[in-house]
Protein backbone atom coordinates (compact mmCIF):
# COMPACT_ATOMS: atom_id res chain seq x y z
CA UNK A 1 0.00 0.00 0.00
CA UNK A 2 1.25 3.44 -0.85
CA UNK A 3 1.65 5.96 1.99
CA UNK A 4 -0.40 8.51 0.10
CA UNK A 5 -3.35 6.18 -0.32
CA UNK A 6 -3.30 5.19 3.35
CA UNK A 7 -3.48 8.89 4.15
CA UNK A 8 -6.39 9.39 1.78
CA UNK A 9 -8.23 6.44 3.32
CA UNK A 10 -8.00 8.18 6.70
CA UNK A 11 -9.15 11.52 5.31
CA UNK A 12 -12.56 13.06 5.10
CA UNK A 13 -14.08 13.71 1.72
CA UNK A 14 -16.05 16.91 1.38
CA UNK A 15 -19.08 14.85 0.31
CA UNK A 16 -19.07 12.98 3.67
CA UNK A 17 -19.44 16.14 5.69
CA UNK A 18 -23.22 16.08 5.78
CA UNK A 19 -23.11 19.86 5.39
CA UNK A 20 -25.07 20.29 2.15
CA UNK A 21 -28.79 20.85 1.59
CA UNK A 22 -31.07 18.01 2.80
CA UNK A 23 -27.98 16.17 4.05
CA UNK A 24 -29.99 14.10 6.54
CA UNK A 25 -31.45 12.21 3.58
CA UNK A 26 -29.31 13.14 0.57
CA UNK A 27 -25.77 11.93 1.27
CA UNK A 28 -24.08 13.31 -1.80
CA UNK A 29 -24.52 14.61 -5.31
CA UNK A 30 -22.27 13.88 -8.24
CA UNK A 31 -22.38 15.03 -11.82
CA UNK A 32 -20.12 13.36 -14.35
CA UNK A 33 -19.39 14.11 -17.97
CA UNK A 34 -18.20 11.47 -20.43
CA UNK A 35 -15.72 12.81 -23.00
CA UNK A 36 -13.57 11.25 -25.69
CA UNK A 37 -10.64 12.68 -27.60
CA UNK A 38 -11.24 13.10 -31.32
CA UNK A 39 -7.86 11.64 -32.31
CA UNK A 40 -7.89 8.31 -30.41
CA UNK A 41 -10.09 5.24 -30.96
CA UNK A 42 -12.55 4.56 -28.12
CA UNK A 43 -11.35 2.65 -25.08
CA UNK A 44 -12.26 -0.89 -26.17
CA UNK A 45 -10.23 -0.43 -29.38
CA UNK A 46 -7.17 1.08 -27.69
CA UNK A 47 -4.03 -1.05 -27.67
CA UNK A 48 -2.12 -0.93 -24.35
CA UNK A 49 0.42 1.36 -26.07
CA UNK A 50 -2.31 3.71 -27.27
CA UNK A 51 -3.90 3.69 -23.82
CA UNK A 52 -0.54 4.69 -22.35
CA UNK A 53 -0.17 7.45 -24.93
CA UNK A 54 -3.65 8.67 -24.06
CA UNK A 55 -2.84 8.71 -20.33
CA UNK A 56 0.44 10.59 -20.97
CA UNK A 57 -1.29 13.11 -23.21
CA UNK A 58 -4.17 13.83 -20.84
CA UNK A 59 -1.91 13.98 -17.78
CA UNK A 60 0.18 16.66 -19.46
CA UNK A 61 -2.89 18.65 -20.41
CA UNK A 62 -4.28 18.38 -16.89
CA UNK A 63 -0.99 19.64 -15.45
CA UNK A 64 -1.25 22.65 -17.74
CA UNK A 65 -4.95 23.46 -17.66
CA UNK A 66 -5.60 22.58 -14.03
CA UNK A 67 -2.28 23.38 -12.38
CA UNK A 68 -3.98 25.58 -9.78
CA UNK A 69 -6.49 22.95 -8.69
CA UNK A 70 -3.99 21.04 -6.59
CA UNK A 71 -4.81 17.68 -8.08
CA UNK A 72 -3.32 14.34 -7.14
CA UNK A 73 -2.46 12.46 -10.35
CA UNK A 74 -2.40 8.72 -9.79
CA UNK A 75 -1.63 5.98 -12.29
CA UNK A 76 -3.51 2.81 -11.49
CA UNK A 77 -0.58 0.66 -12.60
CA UNK A 78 1.34 1.96 -9.55
CA UNK A 79 -1.33 0.73 -7.17
CA UNK A 80 -1.93 -2.67 -5.62
CA UNK A 81 -5.37 -4.23 -5.26
CA UNK A 82 -6.06 -2.68 -1.82
CA UNK A 83 -5.15 0.82 -3.03
CA UNK A 84 -7.47 0.47 -6.00
CA UNK A 85 -10.18 -0.79 -3.68
CA UNK A 86 -9.80 2.28 -1.44
CA UNK A 87 -10.37 4.58 -4.42
CA UNK A 88 -13.37 2.48 -5.44
CA UNK A 89 -14.91 2.52 -1.96
CA UNK A 90 -14.57 6.32 -1.95
CA UNK A 91 -16.20 6.50 -5.40
CA UNK A 92 -13.08 8.20 -6.85
CA UNK A 93 -12.81 5.46 -9.49
CA UNK A 94 -15.36 3.07 -10.96
CA UNK A 95 -15.42 -0.70 -10.57
CA UNK A 96 -14.50 -0.96 -14.25
CA UNK A 97 -11.38 1.10 -13.68
CA UNK A 98 -10.44 -0.74 -10.49
CA UNK A 99 -10.37 -3.96 -12.52
CA UNK A 100 -8.83 -2.51 -15.68
CA UNK A 101 -5.68 -4.13 -17.04
CA UNK A 102 -4.92 -1.38 -19.56
CA UNK A 103 -2.98 1.74 -18.56
CA UNK A 104 -5.29 4.20 -16.86
CA UNK A 105 -5.10 7.01 -14.31
CA UNK A 106 -7.14 9.27 -12.10
CA UNK A 107 -6.79 12.89 -11.00
CA UNK A 108 -8.61 14.17 -7.91
CA UNK A 109 -8.31 16.77 -5.20
CA UNK A 110 -7.73 15.98 -1.55
CA UNK A 111 -11.18 17.24 -0.52
CA UNK A 112 -12.65 14.87 -3.12
CA UNK A 113 -14.76 17.57 -4.77
CA UNK A 114 -13.58 16.81 -8.30
CA UNK A 115 -12.21 13.79 -10.11
CA UNK A 116 -11.11 12.91 -13.63
CA UNK A 117 -10.83 9.28 -14.65
CA UNK A 118 -8.51 8.81 -17.64
CA UNK A 119 -8.98 5.80 -19.95
CA UNK A 120 -12.13 4.46 -18.40
CA UNK A 121 -14.96 3.26 -20.68
CA UNK A 122 -14.66 6.77 -22.12
CA UNK A 123 -11.31 8.56 -22.43
CA UNK A 124 -12.36 11.03 -19.76
CA UNK A 125 -14.93 10.82 -17.03
CA UNK A 126 -14.97 14.24 -15.40
CA UNK A 127 -16.91 14.54 -12.16
CA UNK A 128 -17.78 16.94 -9.38
CA UNK A 129 -19.02 15.82 -5.97
CA UNK A 130 -20.94 17.78 -3.32
CA UNK A 131 -22.41 17.01 0.06
CA UNK A 132 -26.21 16.80 0.18
CA UNK A 133 -28.62 17.57 -2.66
CA UNK A 134 -26.81 20.18 -4.71
CA UNK A 135 -26.99 19.29 -8.40
CA UNK A 136 -26.85 22.87 -9.68
CA UNK A 137 -23.53 23.59 -7.94
CA UNK A 138 -22.05 20.24 -8.97
CA UNK A 139 -23.02 20.92 -12.59
CA UNK A 140 -21.46 24.41 -12.50
CA UNK A 141 -18.22 22.97 -11.17
CA UNK A 142 -17.98 20.12 -13.65
CA UNK A 143 -18.98 22.40 -16.51
CA UNK A 144 -16.15 24.80 -15.65
CA UNK A 145 -13.70 21.89 -15.47
CA UNK A 146 -14.90 20.66 -18.84
CA UNK A 147 -14.32 24.15 -20.32
CA UNK A 148 -10.76 24.19 -19.00
CA UNK A 149 -9.99 20.73 -20.39
CA UNK A 150 -11.68 21.48 -23.69
CA UNK A 151 -9.39 24.49 -24.21
CA UNK A 152 -6.49 22.00 -24.32
CA UNK A 153 -7.90 19.17 -26.43
CA UNK A 154 -10.38 18.26 -29.17
CA UNK A 155 -13.30 16.21 -27.96
CA UNK A 156 -15.21 13.85 -30.24
CA UNK A 157 -18.37 15.79 -30.96
CA UNK A 158 -21.04 15.98 -33.64
CA UNK A 159 -23.74 18.62 -33.89
CA UNK A 160 -26.27 15.86 -34.33
CA UNK A 161 -25.34 13.42 -31.54
CA UNK A 162 -23.43 15.79 -29.27
CA UNK A 163 -20.50 14.35 -27.31
CA UNK A 164 -19.72 10.96 -28.83
CA UNK A 165 -19.37 8.29 -26.18
CA UNK A 166 -18.37 4.62 -26.20
CA UNK A 167 -21.86 3.57 -25.13
CA UNK A 168 -24.92 4.95 -26.94
CA UNK A 169 -26.68 5.40 -23.58
CA UNK A 170 -24.33 8.33 -22.81
CA UNK A 171 -24.30 10.08 -26.19
CA UNK A 172 -25.38 13.72 -26.30
CA UNK A 173 -24.51 15.55 -23.13
CA UNK A 174 -22.51 12.60 -21.72
CA UNK A 175 -23.87 13.76 -18.40
CA UNK A 176 -24.98 11.65 -15.49
CA UNK A 177 -26.31 13.56 -12.50
CA UNK A 178 -26.83 11.32 -9.50
CA UNK A 179 -27.89 11.74 -5.91
CA UNK A 180 -27.20 9.17 -3.24
CA UNK A 181 -30.21 9.00 -0.96
CA UNK A 182 -30.63 7.31 2.40
CA UNK A 183 -34.21 6.04 2.51
CA UNK A 184 -34.72 3.84 5.57
CA UNK A 185 -38.18 5.36 6.23
CA UNK A 186 -39.48 4.39 2.81
CA UNK A 187 -37.96 0.93 3.17
CA UNK A 188 -39.48 0.36 6.63
CA UNK A 189 -42.91 1.58 5.59
CA UNK A 190 -42.64 -0.57 2.44
CA UNK A 191 -43.14 2.36 0.11
CA UNK A 192 -39.76 2.03 -1.56
CA UNK A 193 -41.11 -0.18 -4.33
CA UNK A 194 -43.55 2.55 -5.33
CA UNK A 195 -40.75 5.12 -5.41
CA UNK A 196 -38.69 2.72 -7.48
CA UNK A 197 -41.45 2.29 -10.04
CA UNK A 198 -42.37 5.95 -10.21
CA UNK A 199 -38.79 7.06 -10.65
CA UNK A 200 -38.25 4.48 -13.41
CA UNK A 201 -41.32 5.72 -15.24
CA UNK A 202 -39.79 9.19 -15.35
CA UNK A 203 -36.79 7.85 -17.25
CA UNK A 204 -34.58 8.11 -14.23
CA UNK A 205 -32.66 5.20 -12.78
CA UNK A 206 -32.49 3.92 -9.23
CA UNK A 207 -29.33 2.02 -8.42
CA UNK A 208 -27.45 0.64 -5.45
CA UNK A 209 -24.55 2.17 -3.57
CA UNK A 210 -21.87 1.30 -6.09
CA UNK A 211 -23.64 2.17 -9.31
CA UNK A 212 -24.76 0.15 -12.26
CA UNK A 213 -25.89 -3.39 -11.60
CA UNK A 214 -25.32 -3.22 -7.86
CA UNK A 215 -28.08 -3.79 -5.37
CA UNK A 216 -29.22 -1.26 -2.89
CA UNK A 217 -27.63 -2.03 0.46
CA UNK A 218 -28.16 -0.35 3.78
CA UNK A 219 -31.16 1.54 2.39
CA UNK A 220 -28.98 3.62 0.05
CA UNK A 221 -30.32 4.41 -3.38
CA UNK A 222 -28.94 6.43 -6.25
CA UNK A 223 -31.30 8.47 -8.38
CA UNK A 224 -29.89 9.55 -11.73
CA UNK A 225 -30.91 10.59 -15.23
CA UNK A 226 -30.99 8.03 -18.02
CA UNK A 227 -31.52 10.30 -21.00
CA UNK A 228 -28.55 12.21 -22.39
CA UNK A 229 -29.72 12.95 -25.93
CA UNK A 230 -32.28 15.60 -26.80
CA UNK A 231 -32.26 17.20 -23.37
CA UNK A 232 -29.83 19.93 -22.44
CA UNK A 233 -27.84 19.91 -19.22
CA UNK A 234 -29.91 22.52 -17.39
CA UNK A 235 -33.14 20.67 -18.11
CA UNK A 236 -31.63 17.43 -16.82
CA UNK A 237 -30.34 19.20 -13.72
CA UNK A 238 -33.82 20.59 -13.04
CA UNK A 239 -35.54 17.26 -13.62
CA UNK A 240 -33.24 15.15 -11.47
CA UNK A 241 -33.35 17.80 -8.77
CA UNK A 242 -37.15 17.86 -8.79
CA UNK A 243 -37.42 14.08 -8.57
CA UNK A 244 -34.79 13.82 -5.83
CA UNK A 245 -36.60 16.53 -3.84
CA UNK A 246 -39.87 14.66 -4.17
CA UNK A 247 -38.28 11.43 -2.96
CA UNK A 248 -36.70 13.34 -0.04
CA UNK A 249 -40.13 14.74 0.83
CA UNK A 250 -41.69 11.25 0.79
CA UNK A 251 -38.88 9.94 2.98
CA UNK A 252 -39.64 12.76 5.43
CA UNK A 253 -43.31 11.80 5.48
CA UNK A 254 -42.40 8.16 6.11
CA UNK A 255 -40.16 9.20 8.96
CA UNK A 256 -42.92 11.34 10.45
CA UNK A 257 -45.33 8.45 10.18
CA UNK A 258 -42.85 6.12 11.83
CA UNK A 259 -42.35 8.53 14.71
CA UNK A 260 -46.04 9.06 15.25
CA UNK A 261 -47.59 5.70 14.48
CA UNK A 262 -44.72 3.27 14.69
CA UNK A 263 -42.81 4.79 17.57
CA UNK A 264 -42.42 1.75 19.86
CA UNK A 265 -41.36 -0.54 17.02
CA UNK A 266 -38.98 2.05 15.58
CA UNK A 267 -37.36 2.75 18.93
CA UNK A 268 -37.03 -0.98 19.55
CA UNK A 269 -35.31 -1.55 16.19
CA UNK A 270 -32.91 1.37 16.49
CA UNK A 271 -32.11 0.53 20.08
CA UNK A 272 -31.43 -3.14 19.28
CA UNK A 273 -29.29 -2.25 16.27
CA UNK A 274 -27.22 0.15 18.37
CA UNK A 275 -26.95 -2.60 20.98
CA UNK A 276 -25.48 -5.01 18.44
CA UNK A 277 -22.93 -2.48 17.16
CA UNK A 278 -21.89 -1.53 20.69
CA UNK A 279 -21.42 -5.16 21.71
CA UNK A 280 -20.42 -7.18 18.65
CA UNK A 281 -16.92 -8.65 18.29
CA UNK A 282 -17.33 -10.00 14.76
CA UNK A 283 -19.25 -8.20 12.06
CA UNK A 284 -19.38 -8.44 8.25
CA UNK A 285 -19.44 -5.30 6.11
CA UNK A 286 -22.91 -6.24 4.94
CA UNK A 287 -24.30 -6.48 8.46
CA UNK A 288 -22.53 -3.27 9.48
CA UNK A 289 -24.08 -1.42 6.54
CA UNK A 290 -27.59 -2.46 7.54
CA UNK A 291 -27.08 -1.60 11.22
CA UNK A 292 -25.36 1.71 10.52
CA UNK A 293 -28.29 2.66 8.31
CA UNK A 294 -30.56 2.22 11.31
CA UNK A 295 -28.17 4.26 13.51
CA UNK A 296 -28.11 7.03 10.93
CA UNK A 297 -31.90 7.19 11.01
CA UNK A 298 -31.83 7.20 14.82
CA UNK A 299 -29.42 10.16 14.92
CA UNK A 300 -31.44 12.10 12.33
CA UNK A 301 -34.66 11.54 14.27
CA UNK A 302 -33.03 12.61 17.52
CA UNK A 303 -33.55 9.16 19.03
CA UNK A 304 -29.80 8.59 19.45
CA UNK A 305 -27.75 11.11 21.36
CA UNK A 306 -24.01 11.68 21.57
CA UNK A 307 -23.28 10.96 17.91
CA UNK A 308 -22.73 13.26 14.93
CA UNK A 309 -24.13 12.40 11.48
CA UNK A 310 -20.71 13.11 10.00
CA UNK A 311 -19.24 10.37 12.22
CA UNK A 312 -21.88 7.92 11.04
CA UNK A 313 -21.16 8.82 7.41
CA UNK A 314 -17.47 8.16 8.01
CA UNK A 315 -18.20 4.83 9.69
CA UNK A 316 -19.90 3.63 6.51
CA UNK A 317 -16.60 4.11 4.70
CA UNK A 318 -14.44 2.92 7.59
CA UNK A 319 -16.42 -0.37 7.55
CA UNK A 320 -15.49 -1.12 3.93
CA UNK A 321 -12.89 -3.90 3.50
CA UNK A 322 -10.05 -1.87 1.94
CA UNK A 323 -10.46 0.96 4.42
CA UNK A 324 -10.06 -1.49 7.29
CA UNK A 325 -6.88 -2.82 5.70
CA UNK A 326 -5.58 0.70 5.13
CA UNK A 327 -6.13 1.56 8.75
CA UNK A 328 -4.49 -1.63 9.88
CA UNK A 329 -1.63 -1.21 7.44
CA UNK A 330 -1.69 -4.49 5.56
CA UNK A 331 -3.52 -7.45 4.06
CA UNK A 332 -6.06 -9.09 6.32
CA UNK A 333 -8.21 -12.20 6.08
CA UNK A 334 -11.98 -11.82 6.09
CA UNK A 335 -12.13 -13.05 9.70
CA UNK A 336 -9.52 -10.53 10.80
CA UNK A 337 -11.37 -7.77 9.01
CA UNK A 338 -14.66 -8.72 10.63
CA UNK A 339 -13.02 -8.54 14.07
CA UNK A 340 -11.31 -5.18 13.40
CA UNK A 341 -14.52 -3.76 11.95
CA UNK A 342 -16.43 -4.75 15.09
CA UNK A 343 -13.72 -3.17 17.28
CA UNK A 344 -13.76 0.09 15.31
CA UNK A 345 -17.54 0.32 15.44
CA UNK A 346 -17.71 -0.57 19.15
CA UNK A 347 -15.20 2.12 19.99
CA UNK A 348 -16.79 4.80 17.79
CA UNK A 349 -20.29 4.14 19.11
CA UNK A 350 -19.56 4.06 22.84
CA UNK A 351 -20.66 7.71 23.35
CA UNK A 352 -23.96 6.99 21.56
CA UNK A 353 -27.02 6.24 23.61
CA UNK A 354 -30.79 6.15 23.25
CA UNK A 355 -32.02 9.39 24.67
Amino acid at each position, binding site marked *: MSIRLAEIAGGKGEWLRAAGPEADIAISTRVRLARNLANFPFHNRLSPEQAQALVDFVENKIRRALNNQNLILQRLSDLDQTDRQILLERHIISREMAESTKPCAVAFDREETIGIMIAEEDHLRIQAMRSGLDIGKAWERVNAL*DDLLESEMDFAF*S*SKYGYLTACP*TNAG*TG*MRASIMLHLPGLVMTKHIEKVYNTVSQMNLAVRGLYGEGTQAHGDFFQVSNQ*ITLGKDEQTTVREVDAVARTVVEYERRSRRWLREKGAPKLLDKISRDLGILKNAFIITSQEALGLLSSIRLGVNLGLIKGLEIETVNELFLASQPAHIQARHGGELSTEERNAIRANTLRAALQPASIG
Partner: protein
Amino acid sequence: MLCQNCNKKPATIHLTEIINEEEKREVHLCEECAKEKGLHYKTHFSIQDLLGNLINMPQGAESAQETPKPCPECGISYDDFRTRGRFGCKNDYRVFAGQLEPLFDKIHHARRHTGKVPRRASENLARDEVLLDLKERLSEAINNEDYEKAAELRDQIGRMEGNR
Protein backbone atom coordinates in the same frame (compact mmCIF):
# COMPACT_ATOMS: atom_id res chain seq x y z
CA MET B 1 -36.90 -5.66 7.03
CA LEU B 2 -35.32 -9.02 7.81
CA CYS B 3 -35.70 -12.21 5.82
CA GLN B 4 -38.70 -14.20 7.05
CA ASN B 5 -36.85 -17.46 6.64
CA CYS B 6 -33.53 -16.92 8.41
CA ASN B 7 -34.41 -13.74 10.29
CA LYS B 8 -30.81 -12.65 9.91
CA LYS B 9 -30.23 -11.01 6.60
CA PRO B 10 -32.14 -8.07 5.15
CA ALA B 11 -34.91 -9.16 2.82
CA THR B 12 -34.17 -8.01 -0.68
CA ILE B 13 -36.74 -10.13 -2.50
CA HIS B 14 -40.38 -9.30 -2.00
CA LEU B 15 -43.03 -11.56 -3.44
CA THR B 16 -46.77 -11.59 -3.30
CA GLU B 17 -48.08 -15.15 -3.23
CA ILE B 18 -51.58 -15.46 -4.55
CA ILE B 19 -53.19 -18.25 -2.58
CA ASN B 20 -56.65 -17.84 -4.02
CA GLU B 21 -58.64 -15.00 -5.47
CA GLU B 22 -59.20 -13.30 -2.15
CA GLU B 23 -56.16 -14.36 -0.22
CA LYS B 24 -52.71 -13.00 -0.92
CA ARG B 25 -49.61 -13.34 1.17
CA GLU B 26 -46.48 -11.23 1.14
CA VAL B 27 -43.17 -13.04 1.36
CA HIS B 28 -39.91 -11.29 2.15
CA LEU B 29 -36.68 -13.19 1.72
CA CYS B 30 -32.96 -12.53 1.53
CA GLU B 31 -31.22 -13.57 -1.65
CA GLU B 32 -29.65 -16.71 -0.15
CA CYS B 33 -32.86 -18.08 1.29
CA ALA B 34 -34.66 -17.32 -1.94
CA LYS B 35 -32.01 -19.30 -3.80
CA GLU B 36 -32.33 -22.19 -1.33
CA LYS B 37 -36.04 -22.23 -1.88
CA GLY B 38 -35.34 -22.59 -5.56
CA LEU B 39 -36.66 -19.24 -6.52
CA HIS B 40 -34.79 -18.38 -9.65
CA TYR B 41 -35.28 -14.96 -10.99
CA LYS B 42 -33.18 -11.98 -11.79
CA THR B 43 -32.92 -9.54 -8.93
CA HIS B 44 -31.37 -6.92 -11.11
CA PHE B 45 -30.08 -6.52 -14.61
CA SER B 46 -27.13 -4.69 -15.99
CA ILE B 47 -27.34 -1.92 -18.51
CA GLN B 48 -25.49 -4.23 -20.93
CA ASP B 49 -28.31 -6.79 -20.78
CA LEU B 50 -30.83 -4.08 -21.38
CA LEU B 51 -28.84 -2.54 -24.18
CA GLY B 52 -28.24 -5.92 -25.80
CA ASN B 53 -31.99 -6.46 -25.79
CA LEU B 54 -32.70 -3.08 -27.25
CA ILE B 55 -30.15 -3.42 -30.02
CA ASN B 56 -31.29 -6.94 -30.84
CA MET B 57 -34.95 -6.03 -30.97
CA PRO B 58 -36.73 -7.12 -34.12
CA GLN B 59 -35.71 -4.72 -36.81
CA GLY B 60 -38.29 -2.09 -37.60
CA ALA B 61 -39.12 -0.80 -41.05
CA GLU B 62 -36.58 1.97 -40.68
CA SER B 63 -33.62 -0.33 -40.25
CA ALA B 64 -34.79 -2.92 -42.75
CA GLN B 65 -31.91 -1.79 -44.94
CA GLU B 66 -28.78 -3.88 -45.40
CA THR B 67 -26.35 -4.32 -42.55
CA PRO B 68 -23.82 -1.51 -42.91
CA LYS B 69 -20.20 -2.15 -43.81
CA PRO B 70 -17.66 -2.27 -40.97
CA CYS B 71 -16.20 1.06 -39.87
CA PRO B 72 -13.18 1.92 -42.05
CA GLU B 73 -11.51 3.68 -39.08
CA CYS B 74 -11.71 1.17 -36.24
CA GLY B 75 -12.81 -1.93 -38.16
CA ILE B 76 -15.75 -2.67 -35.89
CA SER B 77 -18.75 -4.30 -37.59
CA TYR B 78 -22.34 -3.59 -36.74
CA ASP B 79 -22.57 -7.09 -35.25
CA ASP B 80 -19.59 -6.33 -32.97
CA PHE B 81 -21.40 -3.27 -31.79
CA ARG B 82 -24.61 -5.20 -31.26
CA THR B 83 -22.94 -7.80 -29.10
CA ARG B 84 -20.82 -5.45 -27.03
CA GLY B 85 -23.02 -2.41 -26.94
CA ARG B 86 -19.91 -0.24 -27.33
CA PHE B 87 -18.63 1.77 -30.27
CA GLY B 88 -15.03 1.42 -31.43
CA CYS B 89 -14.49 5.04 -32.46
CA LYS B 90 -16.31 8.30 -33.09
CA ASN B 91 -16.72 7.44 -36.76
CA ASP B 92 -19.12 4.59 -35.92
CA TYR B 93 -21.80 7.15 -35.21
CA ARG B 94 -21.76 8.02 -38.91
CA VAL B 95 -21.13 4.57 -40.33
CA PHE B 96 -24.07 3.05 -38.40
CA ALA B 97 -26.22 6.18 -38.57
CA GLY B 98 -29.19 4.44 -40.22
CA GLN B 99 -29.32 1.80 -37.49
CA LEU B 100 -28.74 4.23 -34.66
CA GLU B 101 -31.72 6.47 -35.01
CA PRO B 102 -34.29 3.82 -34.03
CA LEU B 103 -31.93 2.80 -31.21
CA PHE B 104 -31.73 6.36 -29.94
CA ASP B 105 -35.51 6.58 -30.11
CA LYS B 106 -35.68 3.64 -27.73
CA ILE B 107 -32.95 4.79 -25.35
CA HIS B 108 -33.41 8.54 -25.32
CA HIS B 109 -36.76 9.16 -27.04
CA ALA B 110 -34.82 11.65 -29.16
CA ARG B 111 -32.40 11.75 -32.07
CA ARG B 112 -30.65 15.06 -31.74
CA HIS B 113 -28.35 16.69 -29.24
CA THR B 114 -29.61 19.93 -27.75
CA GLY B 115 -27.04 20.58 -25.02
CA LYS B 116 -23.57 22.02 -24.63
CA VAL B 117 -21.36 22.58 -27.68
CA PRO B 118 -17.59 22.72 -27.12
CA ARG B 119 -16.20 26.06 -28.30
CA ARG B 120 -13.43 24.47 -30.32
CA ALA B 121 -15.81 22.17 -32.17
CA SER B 122 -17.95 24.93 -33.61
CA GLU B 123 -15.51 25.77 -36.42
CA ASN B 124 -15.51 22.20 -37.74
CA LEU B 125 -19.21 21.76 -37.28
CA ALA B 126 -20.47 23.66 -40.28
CA ARG B 127 -18.47 21.44 -42.63
CA ASP B 128 -19.35 18.28 -40.70
CA GLU B 129 -22.98 19.24 -40.90
CA VAL B 130 -22.86 19.50 -44.69
CA LEU B 131 -20.97 16.21 -44.94
CA LEU B 132 -23.47 14.43 -42.75
CA ASP B 133 -26.32 15.76 -44.82
CA LEU B 134 -24.62 14.62 -48.05
CA LYS B 135 -24.12 11.15 -46.60
CA GLU B 136 -27.75 10.92 -45.61
CA ARG B 137 -28.79 11.90 -49.10
CA LEU B 138 -26.37 9.33 -50.50
CA SER B 139 -27.88 6.42 -48.57
CA GLU B 140 -31.32 7.68 -49.53
CA ALA B 141 -30.30 7.72 -53.19
CA ILE B 142 -28.95 4.17 -52.90
CA ASN B 143 -32.15 3.00 -51.26
CA ASN B 144 -34.15 4.53 -54.09
CA GLU B 145 -31.78 2.90 -56.59
CA ASP B 146 -30.99 6.34 -58.01
CA TYR B 147 -27.38 5.41 -58.85
CA GLU B 148 -26.66 8.44 -60.96
CA LYS B 149 -27.49 10.74 -58.07
CA ALA B 150 -25.59 8.43 -55.70
CA ALA B 151 -22.40 8.61 -57.79
CA GLU B 152 -22.63 12.38 -57.88
CA LEU B 153 -23.06 12.60 -54.11
CA ARG B 154 -20.26 10.12 -53.51
CA ASP B 155 -17.83 12.24 -55.53
CA GLN B 156 -18.90 15.35 -53.69
CA ILE B 157 -18.33 13.63 -50.33
CA GLY B 158 -14.97 12.36 -51.52
CA ARG B 159 -13.85 15.88 -52.43
CA MET B 160 -14.93 17.32 -49.10
CA GLU B 161 -13.27 14.56 -47.08
CA GLY B 162 -10.12 14.96 -49.16
CA ASN B 163 -9.87 18.56 -47.99
CA ARG B 164 -9.68 17.60 -44.36
